[in-house]
């Protein structure tokens, strides 16, 4: 809820419009940031399935994307983690069989991006 309502104005039974979580960006909770290395990824989708916040989007690529060992992966591929919603739990990094994701502290990631 963005506007401040009085007790006489609040909705009966705590109902809000649908899909309120879209407006609620939980990325600000993050302490560790997942750094994704596309060159090590096999697009197995394990990280996508495990992500508790559905913060790893997928896309369809006809042309394909370059992945582990220079191989081109076509069809459904994972893309960059959506940092608006990623809470930095690290489950993706833990589960990744190809070690394509590493977790680094948020302030290190910030400093690295500043240097760039």
């Amino acid at each position, binding site marked *: *809820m963005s506007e*401040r*309502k*009085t*007790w*006489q*104005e*609040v909705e*009966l*039974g*705590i*109902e*809000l*419009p*649908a*899909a*309120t979580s879209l407006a609620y960006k939980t990325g600000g909770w993050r302490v560790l940031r997942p750094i994704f290395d596309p060159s090590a990824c096999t697009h197995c989708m394990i990280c996508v399935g495990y992500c508790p916040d559905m913060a790893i989007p997928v896309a369809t690529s006809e042309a394909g994307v370059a992945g582990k060992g220079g191989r081109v992966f076509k069809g459904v591929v994972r893309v960059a983690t959506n940092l608006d919603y990623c809470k930095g739990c690290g489950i993706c990094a833990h589960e990744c069989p190809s070690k394509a994701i590493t977790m680094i502290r948020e302030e290190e990631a910030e400093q690295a991006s500043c240097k760039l």
Partner: protein
Amino acid sequence: MGVRKAITGAQAAAEAMRQINPDVVVAYPITPQTPIVEEFAKYVADGVVDTEMVPVESEHSAMSAAVGAETAGARAMSATSSQGLALMWEVVAATPGLRLPIVVSLVNRALSAPINIHCDHSDVMGVTTVGWVQIFSENAQEVYENTLLAVRVAEDSRVQLPVMVNQDGFITSHAVEPVEIFDDALVEKFVGVRSLDRALLDVEHAKSVGPLVLPDHYFEFKRAQEEAMSKVFEVYREVGTELSAITGKQYPFFETYHTDDAEAVVVVLNSAAGTAKAAVDAMRAQGKRVGLLKPILFRPFPYAEIREALKDIPVIGVLDRSMDFGACAPVYSEFRNALWALGKRPAMQSYIYGLGGRDIMTTEIEAVFEELLSGKLDAEHQRYIGLRG
């Protein structure tokens, strides 16, 4: 005009549920509540009701499923006792905040430990702070009528809160009494269908139900819930008047028995009020001016009306069938609060009786009256009836 049937309190609750014909009933068996859902399951199996009965693996699931059904717009009911209510507690506490008018038949039973299946009020007294309307019933007849009343009070647009209808485990739930069951068609008309002013599972206008609400709004929702509770009094009166047209009875917040000229009054809930009436009769036969006040609507608590009813009574004994360890017993607390505003307050004595199904006899209540009339009271300590040692 009704039909008189010889049934138990549990069957009386099931009879009311048969006439209410709820869309959904979800319950998990627990002594002494089991015969309610057992009886109701028979109605479902025989096609007497249209209810969908959902078998679940626990009371926590039972109340969760009832919440789901009511959120979808159905009329849902459940029944439980003691440990079942305890396991249900998380969802029981959430239901009033979600403003879902679920009606639960609570067959009062002692809470473990030590484990015990018999009557006391420790189960219900553990949930009186979370926002359910609480109605108490002296006998099977009252269980039946209170259950009908409860549905209408719960679903009124000014209220939309869940209601528990209490009856004493075994003493009421398993004892056979003559119960007058009113005409199906009249009751069906009285109960009506749940009217919704909220489109809950409307995919065209999708909503989030029960989301996270942080310090910026939680307080406001809780204040709105309190407002709904305060509306229960007027709704209870109105619905009671409507039910009177069928039953010919009155539905007061509490019942008084020979209190007008009484020098001492006993306050007691549920079945023991029946025992107390017999004690009052015996004392009155000896010329002793004693009376009884039996609370019926316990949440919200009718402080002003209780105060008015008891303001001229010199001495009041409040009998509790549960303890609030290290504090005043729950019923006694409320009566003390109600009478606090009086300039000249009655003397009061707190008594604990009947824990874990310990019987209470008319002679014991007569002894309470004698003690109250003697003036030998101890405002600082509760006394125990029927306790060894």
